[in-house]
């Protein structure tokens, strides 16, 4: 298979997006964990009565899981699936190939 194969190009794009989102997820979570380990003073700051920055960032870590997942699934459902279907329809390679 040559690299100009449209199905391969789309698959490569999916991997790029998947890797970027994975790195973002890792950065957010390990950012939070490293703050817990090294930034005790910072996380102890009270934003309002009862709400420390640590609790807020913990909750935001969970929310960021949702946001990144939704970004991926919306892109994949709208663009990726359609692009794959079009590419498969256009190529003359034997049917049944998976992206």
């Amino acid at each position, binding site marked *: 298979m040559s690299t100009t194969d449209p199905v391969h190009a789309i698959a490569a794009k999916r991997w790029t997006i*998947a*890797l970027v*989102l*994975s790195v973002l*997820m*890792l950065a*957010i*979570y*390990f950012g*939070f*964990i*490293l703050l*817990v*380990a*090294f930034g*005790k003073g910072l*996380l*102890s700051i*009270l934003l*309002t*009565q*009862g*709400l*420390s920055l*640590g*609790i807020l960032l*913990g*909750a935001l*870590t*969970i*929310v960021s*899981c*949702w946001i*990144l*997942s*939704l970004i*991926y*699934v919306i892109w*994949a*459902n709208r663009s990726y*699936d359609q692009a794959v279907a079009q590419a498969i329809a256009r190529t003359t390679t034997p049917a049944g190939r*998976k992206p």
Partner: protein
Amino acid sequence: MSGSNPLAILFFFVFIALTLGVTYWAAKRTKTTEHFYAAGHGVTGFQNGLALAGDYMSAASFLGIAGLVALNGFDGLIYSTGWLVGWPIILFLIAEPLRNLGKYTFSDVVAYRLQQRPVRIAAVIGTMAVVLTYLIAQMVGAGTLIKLLFSLDYTLAVVIVGIVMMTYVLFGGMLATTWVQIIKACLLLGGAVVLAVLVLAQFGFNPTALFAKAAELNGKQVLEPGTKVVTGAWDAVSLGLALMFGTAGLPHILMRFYTVPDAKQARISVVWATIWIGGFYLITFVLGFGAMVLVGMKEVVGAGGGGNMAAPLLANAVGGSAFFGFICAVAFATILAVVAGLTLSGAAALSHDIWVNVVKGGQASEREQLKVARIAAVILGVCAIVLGIIFQGQNIAYMVGLTFSIAASANFPALVLAIFWRRFTTWGAVTAIVLGTVSTLVLLYCGPTIQVDILKNDIAEVSKQWVVLPAQESLPDHYDSVVSVGDRGLAAHAGTGCRGRLCRGGAPRHLGGIG
């Protein structure tokens, strides 16, 4: 909470009757291996999302985290976040290729381009190590919990859980197991939401008012990172790695992706699972602090079970004995559903990977495959009961940590490398899994969790031994030794490279009290 609660027993029997009814319905539809292992690939993304949440949210999530937060405040929340962040990684990197390349088990994907026999044997070692350690944790947790909740004998409780779980798997296969997970997930989420609403109602539906009250009663430190859960920077990183990548290496979770018809539904199911599990962990913030304020730290400790009674006691405090009974039954259902999922994935590994693909070289009739799968399920069920009884009183937190450490350092790297790396070899895959499993076990044995906490050795003695085994203390040493293995082996090792710290450090030490 001594003395049995008749309502709890009633709720529990309603759950058993309902799930056995589902099993009867599923048994009539389970005629082929495709049904037994993968529910005929007919589960929708939304349903599988709920079932994934049901498979994943063990009693450790519900009772363990609520207890950790009730007793430690902020530090418990590290687990709430850590146990969720593996899910987006599964979504981005694993779910779709897994569904596209595999049939019934994750070994299908690892062995896809490689020699079947050695890779499958290695993958089954990784699978069984995870399944058995997790089963022990769940069974010991079940026995201890049921003893506390229903005042039932430990051995009897373990036998009941084992037999009911075996019934689901044996007759209903994946279809029954899926619906048991869905029912359990709905009960658990529903119960947790009602509990949280009842708690928040006392604080004007303002969570920060609850947190403020907790700080007022127990000091400002409950809202701050302490030193109880994460003792050092490297422990924090190691704990993070184990929680994150361990999730993506659990065979019973990976197996669920074969129940949906295609990669698109697999993708959708992970998003739903992430939403349910994340929402549930946000609720644990409220439940934990709620128990700290409305029940009190002393009472939570006094109830026994290492803080695991926090959520049931909270239910009693805000909803009376009827709600207490309901939450107890939900906790029991939670354990039952998780062990069923584990047993099914173990049975699939023994039957589909070992019997069909290793012993029979891929040639076996449907009838024979189903028979072997059911025999494997019975063997595992009996093993679970026997191990649950043998390991009574064992440190469950350690077993759960071991499970996640093995999954993170054996199964996850092999799976990711098989998906991503075209030059991945049979030798690389076998080394990745076997070395990951064995070294996790060996290093855990040498680490402070066992040597200091369980065997009660002097920390100074243990430190002397570390000089002899430097790999567990210094990752650079580890990578030096790996270079000599050569190109192919290197990546396999790199994937497992986190293990030194994983095993020595935080992961196994403090994971929620009950598996």
